[in-house]
């Protein structure tokens, strides 16, 4: 396992060009091309703004001034996570040709998926930044320095999930369908459209369950860094999650490595 893991850096160039290919292929043939990476989240944000400002202002959380922007801060990393997992669950099967016919370390495929989706996440960030500045969000340099760390933790966590999912889906094809349902549930079990800090009295009992959800801490970190006033209070939990993610990644890689030999025969 560690031998294979140590080989991975040799494939940097391949991962790089495959990610570039993913991104190019996605918008190939469309007139606006890469602009869609900006336009998609922008439209989403404008719609939310319109809906929560004019159509149903009562639905917005009290105590949060700019609810659409708050929601957007949580939604972007979630999109990265969710689409990474959805794509990763099918990536070994659709890339079966490579695994069967080319000498090719299979883990590159989920790595490329997660990385490509991260690039999409990055491409949407400028929109977010523009709105944050426009709405005078309380950004501080100290907190922003923590931002890459949150991204790193999410990357490791997402990659670990993607490795396990991609390897298991080869053997159990219906993980794909199970996953889409799990992700819906997971989305609502994560404080993205509601705020962990602004939960009503009646819902306080749920907090301890929310704490068990790793993505809760990621989202809260993003929200504290980008949206909320005050110090980055979630850093302790994030640090724990970071270490847990590293362990999780090694476990995931071990599972992947164990199943590796079956891929060429099963896909």
């Amino acid at each position, binding site marked *: 396992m560690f031998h294979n893991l140590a080989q991975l850096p040799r494939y940097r*160039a*391949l991962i790089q*060009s*495959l990610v570039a*290919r993913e991104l*190019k*292929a996605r918008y*190939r*043939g469309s007139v606006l091309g890469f602009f869609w990476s900006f336009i998609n989240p922008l439209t989403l944000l404008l719609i939310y703004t319109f809906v929560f400002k004019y159509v149903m202002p009562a639905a917005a959380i009290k105590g949060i001034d700019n609810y659409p922007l708050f929601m957007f801060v949580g939604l972007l990393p979630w999109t990265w996570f969710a689409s990474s997992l959805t794509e990763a669950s099918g990536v070994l099967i659709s*890339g079966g*040709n*490579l*695994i*069967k*016919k*080319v*000498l*090719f370390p299979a883990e590159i495929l989920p790595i490329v998926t997660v990385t490509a989706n991260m690039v999409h996440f990055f491409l949407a960030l400028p929109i977010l930044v523009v709105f944050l500045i426009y709405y005078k969000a309380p950004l501080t340099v100290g907190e922003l320095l923590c931002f890459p760390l949150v991204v790193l933790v999410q990357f490791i966590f997402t990659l670990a999930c993607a490795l396990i999912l991609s390897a*298991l889906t080869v*053997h*159990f*094809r*219906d*993980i794909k369908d*199970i996953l889409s349902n799990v992700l819906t549930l997971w989305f609502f079990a994560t404080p993205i459209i509601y705020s962990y800090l602004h939960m009503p009295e009646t819902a306080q009992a749920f907090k301890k369950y929310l704490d068990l959800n790793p993505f809760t801490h990621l989202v809260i970190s993003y929200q504290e860094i980008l949206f909320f006033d005050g110090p980055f209070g979630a850093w302790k939990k994030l640090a724990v999650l970071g270490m847990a993610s590293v362990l999780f990644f090694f476990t995931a890689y071990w599972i992947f490595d164990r199943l590796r*030999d079956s891929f*060429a*025969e099963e896909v």
Partner: protein
Amino acid sequence: MASSTAIEVSRVSKIYRRFSHRKQFATLKSALLTRSLIKNLRPDETFTALNDVSLTVPKGRTLGVIGRNGSGKSTLLKLVAGITKPSTGTVKVDGRISALIELGAGFHPEISGRENVFINGIMLGLTKREVTQRFDEIVEFAEMKEFIDAPVKTYSSGMYMRLGFAVAIHVDPEVLLVDEVLAVGDEGFTHKCLDKFAEFKRRNKTILLVTHSLAMVERFCDEALWLDAGRIKGSGDPKRIVGAYITDVERREEQELAATDARARDTADAAIVSPDEPASAVLPDNPVETATATGDMFRAAEGRWGSREVEITDVDFVGADAEAGHVFHSGDRMDVRIRMRAPLPIDDFVVGIGIFNTEGTCCYGTNTYIEELTPESIHGDVEAVFAIEALDLIEGTYKVDVAIHKVDGYPYDYHRLLYTFRVKSRAKDVGIYRPRHSWRFLGDVRFSDPRHPRVPRPSDRDPRP
């Protein structure tokens, strides 16, 4: 492993597992529900693709692997390539491998040929810089200059394969693994591929070639390996191995044809046919009509009819070795041995034979009446031999009519297309029959030796050091 060895496969077996039980339910949920997850992960059937195979290929040698479909050739190649792992045994390969297993595997349809060349090259182990250096050469080799910037989805399958081949061959491997990929282009491209292989050989690279083209193995490989049902059935001199393989294939065909014939006869015997039915035999008094009627005759499928006053009991094809068989070589001697029984003496009879190819064309038909043999009597168990000195037919499968009937066509026993034989030939000529022939030329006409591929002159291209 000695330093002069490029590929060493020792005692390798590859067992594929089949999960027929699990495939039936095929889902995680049902596996969890029935709590049979662990049980189902165990294979309930195994298939041994390779069984205790050992081989070594010294550096600079070309090994051709032959064998019938499903004999384990491709599995062997995948093991050497490292794509799958052996179940037992070890595989060692010295040097960079390039596997021409599926050309253009990993091409992305949406992006251009240029970008795909880069990604494919990197995938096969080149660095970006190496691809840049070789890019023009690759594109030129693939004959794709004007299309290289079009998305790959617009390519024809030939273009796709050519580009894939060009990339793979320019990886400049120490060990080249080739799986039946030479049928990728027109004649010219195939020649170019062969030239490239010849160049590889000259530069002392090792090639492992899996192919069904026996001619290719004979003229191109230093050694041949014959796999049969996962085991090595023979290895060594290509001519000898290919010969042994062909003999084996013929023996199997023989068995198949014998089984087909037996089935046809069983069916024909079971069918009740009125003896009064007019025979569409090689009619003695009207041979011209016979020729025009052959189309209908073939549509009339195989069958047997007649009064059985004389019965054809057995028909054999006998070769020069006096053994009955079904597979013959073009130009060989072949006797058709017909055994008949006439319980009562009969004085009005004609023995006839017709040979048809698979299209239903009558290649030859004759009978004793046409050849002016006047019948006097036939009685008891007799044998007729229709001796063909030289079977000058082209390669293919032939069906035979055998009949005994009255001069006026009234059938005693008519066997319609019940017997099959196959003609093998090295030459892939066409037509209905092969006249004995040879070529002669006057003046300045020369031919190169077709058994050796054209070797490019050193000035044609600059071989890399």
